[in-house]
């Protein structure tokens, strides 16, 4: 098993205290980020995102189904994440565990609360049939900060997605209709180490931080928050984190626009 050693953790901690990172980065710098879209031919929208050595692929598929009773005239958004055994020696096969569930739900809330998707345009017949937008996140290689990479992949895949046609109960995948995203929610995770903040924590850094907050901003609004892992934050620290995340999420947004 390729577990992180204590020496490595100590080295990462010492580096951050001196204002740098183990990989040479500044505290508030992302690793190299790459976003490619259209990487899964059968998907209606897809993106492969790398943050340093972390790699995720996101696919969007459309399907037709029954609406929820409380929203009979709206489409359905579903976000799912798989932390499969390929991505880390510590991941196992089987149904999504707590980590995968948290990952998918935080990204789901960012998309839902920002009303990024025009769900009310996705009604086929009120109370009977609506489009289901299914966003599947697959983690390929885990070297930390899967949250930000996956969220960026999800919105990038949705931005390039096209809706198929639908006639007589059949989905016509060769047809491609426009699907317009209203806002671009971007998740940015800020971690606290002593009295310093870092962004885009690597796997080793995730082990040593005193707490993390994933902050999702649209262009204008703060739309979702999740404190993750152990540790605690004072109110003033949180306020600082919200603003730092806002600035940094603008950087990520530029990559996909």
């Amino acid at each position: 098993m390729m577990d992180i050693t204590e020496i490595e953790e100590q080295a990462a901690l010492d580096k951050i205290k001196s204002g740098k990172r183990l990989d040479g980065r500044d505290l508030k710098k992302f690793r190299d980020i790459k976003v490619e879209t259209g990487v899964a031919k059968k998907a209606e929208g897809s993106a492969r995102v790398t943050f340093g050595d972390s790699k995720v692929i996101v696919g969007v598929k459309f399907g037709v189904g029954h609406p929820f009773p409380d929203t009979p005239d709206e489409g359905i958004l579903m976000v799912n994440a798989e932390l499969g055994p390929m991505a880390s020696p510590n991941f196992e096969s089987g149904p999504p565990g707590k980590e995968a569930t948290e990952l998918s739900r935080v990204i789901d809330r960012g998309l839902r609360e920002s009303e990024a998707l025009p769900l009310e345009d996705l009604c086929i017949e009120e109370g009977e049939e609506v489009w289901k937008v299914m966003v599947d996140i697959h983690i390929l290689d885990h070297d930390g900060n899967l949250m930000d990479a996956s969220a960026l992949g999800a919105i990038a895949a949705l931005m390039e997605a096209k809706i198929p046609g639908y006639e007589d109960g059949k989905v016509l995948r060769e047809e491609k209709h426009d699907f317009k995203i209203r806002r671009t929610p971007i998740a940015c995770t800020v971690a606290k180490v002593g009295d310093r903040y870092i962004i885009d924590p690597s796997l080793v850094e995730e082990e040593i931080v005193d707490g993390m907050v994933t902050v999702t901003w649209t262009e204008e609004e703060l739309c979702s928050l999740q404190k993750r892992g152990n540790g605690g934050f004072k109110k003033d620290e949180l306020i600082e984190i919200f603003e730092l995340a806002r600035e940094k999420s603008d950087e990520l947004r530029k990559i996909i626009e």
Partner: protein
Amino acid sequence: MSKDKKLLKDGKRIDGRGIGDLREMEAEAGIFKRADGSGYFRMGGTEAVAAVFGPRELHPKHRQKPKRGILQCRYNLTPFSVEDRKRPGPSRRGKEIGKVSEGALSSTVFLEEFPTATIDVYMEVISADAGTRCVALNAASIALADAGVPMRGLISACAAGKIEDTPVLDLKGEEDKDGQVDLPIAMNVDTDEITLLQMDGMTDTEEMDEMLELAIKGCKKVAEKQREALMKTFEDSR
């Protein structure tokens, strides 16, 4: 869409509360015999029980940590706690809340005192009228203290939110459903450290500051109630 359903009238809410008022609270410690510690908490129409087992040996062994113990949480809504019967067992939502509850409680417990051990916290929501994760955590924190687990302080939780563009404290069901923001937090009121923070809805930093301020005040009142319940166990055993 929900604007016609007046949630606020002359600064009063549908149940007559002001914007900074909590619902009526009730708390009790030591409610179960078999568990090492247990607790009950009610906030208006939301009530939960919690039981703590441990510190005890963690199985499977490969999950043990050589230098510290771990704390594990299960959060579950009973099938009869909601309008339409819920399928038994934790849902995706329940799993996530279990995880953030672990994050909320772990840092207050001296886990470094219990290498290789686990402390298991089980939370069951008996009836749900919004704020279930906060009420469950309040019960869990009482249960941890009742079990004699060494802690840096009690964890106290409550939610703030926004209804009809106004920040308010402790949303009840109707307010949560038609509200604009839900912001549950949990904190150690002795150190002012917020250990659970979730938010959904559309807001900004300034408004967050206001809502956090409200929620922190609420947590302080919750802490008093939790302490009262724990003190009472000593009176009873006299």
